[in-house]
């Protein structure tokens, strides 16, 4: 087991390292001088040169890369140009809405997807199954921003059940803040339930044909127990991966949804950073989001230890 953990850990670090390198490259291919962009149009060449020196931009790329790594090692993501604060702080301030948005979306998505997926696999080929498959595909076809606009129109503007936008004021109690998340979470939840449903269905279909399910039936076991205990637990392994992936991807589905709902989350930050040419923030957000993805994946790998005895030794 320790070996498995160690392997995953090493794998995670390797991916993380590559991620850092990719981010470094992406930000470096941006045209123009970052220093000039940071200082704005009024800057004198001397100012720019000074900043270049301070940021290490005048050194060879390899040195810059090492410098960048060193900075990261110290947990330093740099300074936002626009927001006048460290990128880490900017990200930390946005973490809450994004976290809860992701959490709720994934809960909503799973709550829809798991039962529906299981049932439709169990009743494969029936009208219900076809309806589910079609619906899942339909849900995956809706642009999340469009769905967001529709939800705002109906539930916030016409019916007034939920707030239209934002994340509450300075002293908004937790519940009020959460009420801001309902519509975006539903929008994201519906869209991402599509993928999980299809995956659950496929995975269940696979498992239901497995020999041990037949063995369970041959014991004289009731169908519900066969499906839930013997089949679903096995199907859960790939499904968990997808849920994890979806959760990680939601951090970015959030990019669009947070913008539509004006939620001050990380996704929103990224979009405004792009519009503001705030490269340190873009870079930091990319890193953090990729790190979250990698971490979630690692977490799921660890979850397997609980579910699947085969990885335990």
């Amino acid at each position, binding site marked *: 087991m320790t070996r498995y953990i160690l392997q995953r850990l090493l794998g995670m670090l390797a991916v993380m390292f590559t991620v850092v390198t990719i981010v470094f490259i992406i930000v470096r291919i941006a045209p123009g001088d970052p220093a000039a962009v940071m200082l704005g149009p009024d800057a004198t060449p001397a100012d720019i040169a000074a900043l270049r020196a301070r940021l290490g931009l005048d050194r060879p790329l390899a040195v810059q890369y090492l410098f960048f790594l060193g900075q990261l090692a110290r947990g330093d993501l740099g300074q936002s140009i626009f927001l006048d604060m460290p990128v880490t702080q900017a990200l930390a301030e946005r973490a809450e809405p994004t976290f809860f948005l992701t959490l709720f979306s994934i809960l909503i998505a799973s709550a829809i997807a798991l039962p529906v997926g299981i049932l439709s696999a169990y009743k*494969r*080929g029936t009208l219900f199954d076809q309806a589910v498959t079609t619906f899942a595909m339909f849900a995956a076809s809706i642009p999340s921003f469009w769905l967001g606009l529709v939800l705002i129109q109906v539930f916030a503007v016409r019916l007034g059940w939920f707030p239209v936008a934002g994340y509450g004021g300075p002293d908004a109690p937790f519940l009020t803040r959460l009420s801001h998340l309902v519509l975006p979470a539903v929008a994201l939840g519906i869209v991402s339930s599509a993928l999980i449903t299809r995956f659950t269905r496929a995975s269940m279909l696979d498992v239901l*044909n*497995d*020999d*041990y399910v*037949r*063995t*369970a*039936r*041959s*014991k*004289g*076991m*009731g169908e519900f127990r066969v499906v839930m205990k*013997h089949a679903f*637990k*096995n199907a859960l392994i790939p499904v968990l991966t997808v849920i994890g992936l979806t959760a990680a991807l939601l951090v970015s589905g959030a990019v669009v949804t947070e913008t539509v709902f004006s939620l001050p989350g990380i996704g929103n930050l990224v979009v405004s950073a792009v519009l503001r040419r705030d490269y340190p923030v873009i870079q930091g957000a990319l890193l953090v989001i990729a790190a979250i993805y990698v971490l979630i994946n690692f977490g799921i790998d660890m979850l397997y230890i609980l*579910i*699947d*005895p*085969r990885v335990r*030794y």
Partner: protein
Amino acid sequence: MAAVLSAPSPSPLAETLPEDVVLRADDLHTHFIVGERAAKSVDGVTLTVRRGQTLAVVGESGSGKSVTSLSIMRLLAYPGRIVSGRILYRLRDGTVVDLASLPEKRMRAIRGKEIAMIFQEPMTSLNPLFTVGDQIMEMIRLHEPVSRQEARQRARRMLELVEIPAAEKRLDQYPHEMSGGMRQRVMIALALSCNPALLIADEPTTALDVTIQAQILDLMRRLQRDIGMSILFITHNLGVVAEIAHEVAVMYAGRVVEQAPVGALFARPRHPYTKGLLACIPNPERDRTADGKRLMLKPIPGNVPSVLALPPGCTYAPRCPLAEPRCEREAPGLVPAGPGHLSRCFRHELL
């Protein structure tokens, strides 16, 4: 559940089954129907399993052996359906039921308790996520109101019965921690844990090595002697049949073409297919001359017909050296061809 089993059932079927017969499939038809097309996987299977005896069902791949056994257990996968025929089974209390039409709920009480089954693939037939102990205990507690503790004791005894060393320790192991032979033993332990009257074994040794196969066959023979259950043993290996069976049913293209005591069958097959099969298997003593020169084998020409398009008449006719025009029009019935010997051939006397 016990209540269901012991309910006095009006038994008009009782007389149809001789006392010494546990199970009889009667002209069983199981088809897989997809749209217009029907795969007639089992198309008139008649076979009889006698109490305390082993009936081996042999046949080439696709001849419908597994579908027959799954029909008996009523575990057919989705498009499969028992189209007609009866599967008469004598419960322990003596009542006779028709498994083909029994309500699902009663069927569930029979599975595992009355009829248990083991499968070909020991590697995949156990759930990888539960310990073998859990899987055996689950079976016991499904049918008998015992505590976990008791169930565990029973499970351990079952493992001991199938000669698994360090049974107590093995209870807490997962299937992946065991070899194929070990797992097949666990499957047997699982199947036997509720003392079934009939054990259906669908090619239980095909996936195993010869040395392990020998161990398992040995074990099954011993268990039958000790416990006295009946066995329906499915295989395609005539060598295995010779070792384990009391009686043999030979299947071809969804039908039983011959059923006979094992000695009679090997000594004098009464169906051209059985005869052909026996001739196919290389036999160094028969197929080599004294100076070591090899003689050619005598294969059956052609291929097994597709279950989607069975020939009319005798399904074996296209490959049969004895076929006459009649064979291609008319389907022969299963007729007596000797003491306890049935054959589905118009011309069995010629053999």
